[in-house]
C-alpha cells in the first residue's frame, strides 16, 4: 500500500540540471544522483542501507522501511537514465553487518538493479570492507576524466573530486518559512554529493567541516527541489540557528 503511494509521488517529471566539474559535464538529478552521459555512469552517495535495523539492534525500533524506500528511489532514477555503470560513493551500508541483515526482498531489489550493468561499490567509513554476498566491484577510489571519485572529500582535491560523506544540506530563509534541502555543494573543481539514503541526516553547508574543502572560493548549493534543482549562492543560505 505504502509503496504504491510513493510511486505516485515520484511520477512528477524530473528535470535535471547541468553541472560541470573540472571540465566534465554531468547532469545533477533532483533525486540526488549525478549522471555522466559519455560514460553512461550514474553516481549516488551515502545510501546508508539498513540504517533502520542498525538502530533497531541498539533498541531504537525505527520504521523498517528505509532500505526499501532508498532502493525504490534508486530504481526510479536508474530507470530514468538506464546507466551502463552505477557507482555508489561509500557508506552504502550503515554498518559492516548491514548487508547481512538485508531482507530477501531488498536483496532481490539490489540484484534487479545490478542486472545488465556494471556496478562499483566504493568503500566508506561505515562500510570499509566489501559486502558479503552482493555482486559488484569494490574499490576505494575511481576516476572519470580528471575527477577522482571517493567517499571522503580531501582538502587537496587535485585536479578534481566528487565525494560524499558530509551529507550537505542548504537552509534558505524565505517569506514566511524556512526551506532545508539536501544539495550538491560544488565549485568548478569539486562536488560534495547529497546523501541518497532515506534516513541519512544532513549537515548544514555553513558547518566548519566544509571550510577546509572550499576555503573562501565561491561555490553554489544545488538544492534538490521536488522536481528540479535550484542553484543557490552561499550568501542566500543560512546557518542552523
Amino acid at each position, binding site marked *: 500500500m505504502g509503496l504504491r503511494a510513493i510511486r505516485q509521488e515520484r511520477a512528477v517529471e524530473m528535470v535535471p540540471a547541468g553541472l560541470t566539474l573540472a571540465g566534465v559535464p554531468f547532469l545533477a538529478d533532483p533525486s540526488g544522483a549525478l549522471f555522466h552521459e559519455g560514460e553512461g555512469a550514474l553516481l549516488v552517495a551515502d545510501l546508508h542501507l539498513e*540504517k533502520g535495523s542498525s538502530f533497531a539492534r541498539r533498541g531504537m*525500533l525505527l520504521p523498517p*522501511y*528505509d532500505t526499501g524506500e532508498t532502493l525504490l528511489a534508486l530504481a526510479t532514477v536508474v530507470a530514468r537514465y538506464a546507466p551502463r555503470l552505477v557507482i555508489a560513493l561509500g557508506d552504502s551500508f550503515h554498518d559492516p553487518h548491514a548487508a547481512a541483515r538485508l531482507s530477501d526482498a531488498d536483496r532481490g531489489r539490489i540484484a534487479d538493479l545490478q542486472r545488465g550493468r556494471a556496478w562499483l561499490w566504493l568503500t566508506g567509513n561505515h562500510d570499509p570492507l566489501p559486502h558479503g554476498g552482493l555482486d559488484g566491484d569494490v574499490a576505494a577510489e575511481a576516476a572519470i576524466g580528471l575527477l577522482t571519485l571517493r567517499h571522503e572529500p580531501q582538502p587537496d582535491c587535485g585536479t578534481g573530486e566528487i565525494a560524499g560523506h558530509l551529507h550537505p544540506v542548504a537552509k534558505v530563509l524565505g517569506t514566511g518559512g524556512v526551506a532545508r534541502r539536501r544539495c550538491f555543494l560544488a565549485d568548478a573543481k569539486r562536488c560534495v554529493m547529497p546523501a541518497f539514503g532515506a*534516513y541519512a541526516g544532513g549537515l548544514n553547508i555553513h558547518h566548519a567541516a566544509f571550510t577546509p574543502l572550499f576555503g573562501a572560493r565561491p561555490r553554489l548549493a544545488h538544492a534538490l527541489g521536488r522536481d528540479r534543482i535550484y542553484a543557490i549562492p552561499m550568501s542566500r543560505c543560512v546557518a542552523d540557528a
Partner: protein
Amino acid sequence: MLDIASPPALPAPITAWFATRGWAPRAHQMALLEQAEAGRSTLLVAPTGAGKTLAGFLPSLVDLQRRPRGKAALHTLYISPLKALSVDVARNVEGPVTEMGLPIRVETRTGDTPAAKRQRQRRDPPDILLTTPEQLALLLATPDSLAFFKDLRRIVLDELHALVTNKRGDLLALDLARLRRLAPGVQTVGLSATVRDPVELCAYLGGRDDPAPVMVTAPEGAKAEITMLDTRERLPWAGHSARHALGEIYEALRRCKLALIFTNTRFQAEQLFWDLWKHNADNLPIALHHGSLDASQRRRVEAAMAAGTLKAVVCTATLDLGIDWGDVDLVINVGAPKGASRIIQRIGRANHRLDEPSRALLVPSNRFEVIECRAAIDAAAHGVQDTPVPRTGALDVLAQHVLGMACAAPFEADALFSEITDAAPYAHIDRDNFDRVIDFVAHGGYALRAYDRFAKIRQDADGRWRVSNGRVAQQYRMNVGTIVAATMLKVRLARSRTGASGKPVMGRGGRVLGEIEDGFLESLVPGDTFIFGGEVLALQAIVEDEAIVQRARSDTPKIPAWGGSKFPLSTYLASRVRSMLSEPHAWPELPDQVQDWLDIQAARSLLPAADTMLVETYPRAGRHYLVAYPFEGRLAHQTLGMLLTRRLERAGMKPLGFVGNDYALAVWMRADIGARSRNGLVDLDALFGEDMLGDDLEAWLDESSLMKRTFRSCAIIAGLIEKRHPGREKTGRQMTVSTDLVYDVLRRHEPDHILLQAAREDAATGLLDLKRLGDLLGRIKGRIVHKALDRVSPLSVPIMLEIGREPVYGEAQDEILAEAAELLVEEACGPEGNPARTRG
C-alpha cells in the same frame, strides 16, 4: 483565622512544639489530620502561605511517632514538580521533626543524589522520602519495587495543580496507579493552589478502591494589592523588553525590602537583569535566577534571598512554585500575565503571611499587554480562575510506562490494562490502543514485522511480557521522563594560562556557569560575545558538549533565547481583553496613551463587539494585508495563518507570508483582497469557514514542521529514539537519526501508526492548538466584520511590527523593531493631526 486550641488528636511532642512557637494548628491542618485518621485521601486547596506543607506532613508525623520501632520501611512519599522544592521542603520538615524530638528520618532523592546514597536508600529506606515524578518512575521500574513500597501509607503530591497539566502528570498518574497496587489502602494527599475546578483534581488523586477523596479548602488570605505601572514614558507598540519602564522599575526596587521580578522567558530575564545593572547607580544587590544557570549559582542566590542580603531577584517560572525563601514584599511581573490564575499564584510569592495583602506591580511591555494586565487585575479582584482543563493521557507516556513496568517484573497484559485504567487520565483508553502500545514497545508496532529478533519485550510461555535483556532496562533508565529539551551545551569558563611562548593558552577545567541551547551557539563564531548569567562572555571554542568562554567586554553582546518557555494567553483572559476593547466605558481604567490609541482606531477603523471578529484589509508598499483579531493566542493564530494561506493560495490571492502573535494575525499577499471582497469575488465568511479543519488541515499537517517537532518529542518519550546525551555520542551526525526523516517514511508507509496517532493528539492541544482554533471558527461563524481601509490601522501596528522577525531567536530583535516602529506609527496615525502625535 479558625484556629483550634490544643486539639485532642495531636500527640504530646507535637502539641508542645506548637506551644513553644506560640502557634496553634490551623483548621485545615487539623481537618487533614482528621481525614487521614479516618483513612481517607484528601485534596487541600489553599493559597500560598497557608501552611500547606505542614498540613500535608502533619498526619505522617502523628502516625510515625506512634509506630513501633522496628524495621525501616517507607511510610510517606512526597512528590513535587521541582528538584529544588524537594530540597527546600526537606529542610522545612526536618526542622520541626528535630525540634519535636521525633525519631523520623527524612531524605531526598533527586537526579543529584549520589549513587551510593541511592543504593543505601533502596536497602534501608527513610520514613519520609521527598522526590520527583521521574525518580518515582525509576524506583517503580526496579525489580525490588514491591519490597520498597509495600508498607507505604501516604503519598503527598505538592503543587498538584502544576503537576497535572502536562505529560509529567500523565506519568505520575500511571505511577500512582501502580503504587495503589503495591501498597493497597495507601492514602493520597494533594496540595494545590486555588484552581478552576478542584473536583477534577480529586478525581486525579483517587482510584477504583479510593473513589472519593475529600476536599478541604483553607480560607483565602487577604486580597492582593495589584497595580499596573502607569508609565510616564512612551508605551512601546510591540516587543517585550519593557526597557521604557526601567527607571520606574528601579524606583520601585529602591522603595521595597526584597522584590521578585518575574519575566516570561529566560531571554527576558537576562536582558532585564543586564539593563537593570546598567541602571544601577546605587549598586543595589540585584541577582538573577533561571533554569539554565548552574545549580550551585542558583543555590547561592536562594541562600542570599533567605539571608536577606538581596534587594531584588530577576527570575522566571522556576521561582513560580512554592519555594519559600526570604521576606519578599513586592512582586513585579514584567510582560503579559498570560493567565489570571498564573498571575495570582506568582503574586502569592510575596508576603507569605496570610493576613497581610501581597503587593504586586504589573509592568506591561507594550500596548496590548496593558489591556491584558488590566484584564488580569480585574480577574484577580473577582477571584476568577483559568487553570487548564484535565488531560487525556498521552500514548507516548503510556509506552514509556509499559516498558518501565516490564523492567520491574513480567506482566500480564490484562492485569496491566486494568491497572493503567485506574489512572484518571487513562480511565477511558480503549483496549485496542493499549494493545497497540504494547506491540509498539515490543517490536515497534509495524505491520512489517521486521524487528521480532530485536524485540525489547517478549511474551514468555505463560503469556507474560518480560524485557529481552538487561540493556533494555538500562536504556529505559537513561530515557525516563517526559521533558524533551533542546540539546544543551555546558557553558564553561576557560581557565587561562600562559603558555611557554608567553602567549595565553586556552585551558579547560574552569567553572561551569550553566547551559545553553546548541542552536544558539552554532550561530556564533569564536570571539562573538553574548550575555549569560548577567555577564558578557566571549566564545572561545566548542569542545564536545561544552562551550568554552571567557569574560569579555562588549557594547553589543547577543542575548541567547531558549525555546519552549512561552505560555499561551488563557482563553479567559483573551475573552476579557476582547470585551474590554468593545466597551469604551471601561477605558478610563487604561492609561491615556492606550485610550488615545483605541480612540484613533475607532475613528479610523472600528473596535469590534466582543462577539464578533474584526478583519481589516489594506494596501501597503505594493502588498495587500489582511489582519484578523481573534485574541486566541499565538499557537492557534499560527495554525490559522498556515491554513488561511493555503486557502488564499487556492483562491488566487498569491499570499506571501503571515505572522501571528497572541492577539492578532496578519497575512500579506499580491492580490487586492479588499477590492475582491468588495466585488464579491472573495467571501471572508467562507475563507474563515470551519471546514478548513478538514482537508486543508490534513494536507498541511503532513508537511508541517510543527507536526514534525511534535512527532520528535513523542518519539523520544515513547522510546523510539534515545534522548541525546551530549558528549556521550562523539560522532554526532552519523549516530543520530533525524526524526523528520523517520516521520516522512512512517507516514508514507503506516499513516495510522500509534506514534503518529500520539503526535496528532498532541498537536490538537499542543503546538498547533487545534482545539482552540476549532472553538474560534465556531465562535466567529457569521460574525466577521470586515473593514476595507486605505492604509495601516492603529490596532494593527503591533502585529505589523512583528513581520520580518526571525522566527527562532527573534526576541533579540526588539531594538530593530522599536526603530521600525516609528515609521509605521507615523503612517497609521499621521497626517490628519491626531492626539497621539501631540501627546505621544
